[in-house]
């Protein structure tokens, strides 16, 4: 059995406005670069983080992004967790479908973000909020 990843470093960002989304994704960019992710992996994880940070602001009424460098066995990666106390996602399966949107967006944020990372976990409780965790491992 593989042990749970160990957190080597952590930092959190407030997500209240579209300017916070930019600050948060810059943070992800900086850490991904320091970790030594390839330019493509870096671009993917920053883009996924941008989608999820915006979701927390627009649909979750604001939230927090926590950025972690994690290590597991011989590998290291970047884990990003987005938490909000918004209205939650009532139909998670549908929200993960391409093109499904309850707002004015295109409905590619969640499924798109999932395709850009190695691990993706979403939990949501109606009227309590949503938590999304993504991991991109360094190869």
């Amino acid at each position: 059995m593989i042990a749970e990843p160990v957190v080597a470093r952590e930092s959190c960002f407030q997500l209240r406005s579209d300017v916070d989304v930019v600050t948060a994704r810059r943070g992800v960019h900086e850490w991904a670069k320091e970790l030594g992710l390839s330019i493509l992996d870096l671009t993917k994880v920053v883009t996924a983080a941008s989608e999820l940070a915006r979701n927390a602001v627009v649909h979750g009424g604001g939230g927090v992004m926590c950025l972690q460098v994690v290590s597991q066995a011989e590998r290291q990666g970047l884990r990003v967790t987005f938490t909000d106390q918004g209205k939650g996602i009532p139909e998670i399966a549908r929200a993960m479908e391409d093109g499904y949107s309850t707002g004015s967006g295109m409905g590619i944020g969640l499924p798109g973000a999932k395709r850009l990372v190695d691990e993706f976990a979403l939990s949501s409780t109606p009227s309590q909020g949503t938590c999304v965790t993504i991991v991109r491992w360094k190869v």
Partner: protein
Amino acid sequence: MERIPILRMGKVLLVTIQVDMHDQLAMTLQNDLAKAIASQETSCVLLDISALEIVDSFIGRMMANTAGMGRILGAETVVVGMQPAVAITLVELGLSLKGIHTALDVERGMALVERAAAARA
């Protein structure tokens, strides 16, 4: 208010995006472009995104909307200088940017526009 400058050269509008745009800034640019296209005859909008490290669905949608809106008003949009990693990420994200012309750099973008204009004439 913070704004992205729009440069006019005859019938061509050139926008060089050099900052990491927040959503409101992207919306402002889209509106400013619509006004600029409608105010004077415009054949083409060149969007230089070579300095952008990421393009997410919001910025992608802004580019697609600009292209759609421009086309209705008689202007074609050419996105120039997209980083290879950005292009790969956009496709995986699920954004195909249909209807948008692309070119490697501003010079080739201009050439593309001129060829298209010559073909119409």
